[in-house]
């Protein structure tokens, strides 16, 4: 691995051992990003954060622009991509994850890989979203809806032969195993239907983030680990008991969300909020703000402090992977409870929690 690639980091999962999870993302190490961003103004900030990250570049750009605009209310606002683009990018990230990540995460054989690779033909996969407007994005999502209908119909016709009526059916060999893995669910519930309550929670998190230098690498919410993903959206908050209890339900939440997005009513041009994927910002004080964005892997948060001359003084990025791959989190606990040679279950859990970096599994041969 080149020194540059090493910046991305890696997680090592050790089933049945304690600690069961090790690793981190050096790029998010305390002080690293703030040093790079110090002195930047709004447009430069958005450009840099958009350039650094691969899959979630769009979400970082959105969240950075939202944070900047809230921190600098008197400056000309930075453009923020239409909300429908967040839907499009989220659906695309899910489909890409299923088609490209699941085969390697789950070490699938050639036949299963072929089943998932059918997803590569979806109309979002190769579309460049640079400069795409709301109408173009909405048309793409309509094309996705039509493609999903055709995909499911065509697949159902041949399901008996190849078992591919959906990417979930490709994984049917995994379903019993994944249903038997039930990590304790503690949803990250920073977002709240009540705006005042949500503001209180975001303020509280921002204070905790600033009090601990390593918070963005080992985050907690009110002293406890929490998890975030397609299954912890604000829109799922009222569902009690949660349908997302097993590794299988966490895996399948991605496919459900693609269908939700493709089948949703179009968003009005200037919709103040999206019922599917929340994003926004909260000014915290002079030159300071926190912004959020529900993206494919979960909740992304940015915090910024800007000085009187309009330059970044400090910046923090809190990403979903650091919640989900916390060494004391639900994934780590669940890994510790399986036998040390159960690599298959470890793979299943890793795919369910879906780190955005490489995961290596170190099982112990009995």
């Amino acid at each position, binding site marked *: 691995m*080149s020194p540059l690639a090493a*910046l991305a980091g890696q997680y090592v999962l050790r089933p049945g051992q304690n600690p069961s999870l090790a690793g981190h993302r050096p790029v998010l190490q305390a002080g690293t990003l703030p*040093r790079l961003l110090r002195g930047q103004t709004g447009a430069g900030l958005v450009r840099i954060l958009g350039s650094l990250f*691969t899959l979630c570049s769009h979400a970082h750009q959105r969240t950075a622009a939202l944070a900047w605009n809230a921190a600098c209310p008197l400056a000309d606002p930075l453009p923020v991509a239409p909300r429908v683009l967040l839907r499009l990018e989220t659906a695309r990230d899910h489909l890409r994850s299923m088609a490209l990540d699941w085969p390697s995460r789950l070490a699938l054989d050639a036949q299963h890989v072929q089943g998932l690779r059918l997803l590569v033909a979806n109309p979002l996969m190769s579309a460049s979203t640079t400069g795409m407007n709301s109408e173009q994005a909405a048309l793409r999502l309509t094309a996705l809806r039509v493609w999903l209908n055709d995909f499911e119909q065509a697949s159902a016709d041949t399901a008996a032969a190849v078992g591919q009526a959906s990417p979930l059916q490709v994984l049917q060999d995994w379903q019993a195993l994944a249903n038997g893995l039930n990590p304790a669910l503690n949803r990250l519930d920073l977002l709240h239907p009540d705006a005042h309550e949500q503001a209180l929670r975001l303020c509280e998190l921002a204070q905790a983030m600033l009090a601990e230098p390593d918070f963005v690498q080992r985050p907690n919410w009110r002293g406890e680990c929490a998890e975030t993903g397609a299954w912890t959206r604000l829109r799922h908050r009222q569902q009690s008991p949660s349908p997302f209890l097993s590794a299988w339900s966490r895996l399948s939440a991605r496919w459900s969300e693609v269908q939700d997005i493709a089948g949703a009513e179009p968003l009005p041009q200037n919709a103040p909020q999206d019922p599917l994927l929340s994003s926004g910002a909260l000014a915290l004080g002079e030159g300071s703000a926190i912004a959020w964005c529900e993206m494919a892997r979960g909740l992304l948060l940015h915090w910024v402090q800007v000085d009187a001359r309009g330059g970044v003084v400090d910046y923090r990025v809190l990403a979903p992977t650091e919640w989900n791959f916390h060494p004391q989190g639900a994934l780590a606990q669940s890994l510790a409870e399986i036998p040390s040679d159960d690599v298959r279950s470890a793979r299943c859990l890793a795919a369910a929690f879906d780190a955005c970096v490489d995961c290596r599994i170190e099982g112990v041969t009995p």
Partner: protein
Amino acid sequence: MCLALPARVVAINGLDATVDLGGVRKAISIELVPEAQVDDYVIVHVGHAIGMVDADEAARTLALFAELEASQSQEMMPQVVA
């Protein structure tokens, strides 16, 4: 990988390609960006090129990563106590 490291395409054989990623050669698929040519820069995820960046943008991004790397090395250097 979560980081968008631009990788330079150094050889193409159909939809298979070899890229140079920070001095390391890797075999990848260009199925998702079949228009890629030798010397183009692509962004790679789990062995697949998933997007292209122009040479100027690639140079800016590689400079950013070099700055990040240097910043990190600096942080990891032992502190000298007078």
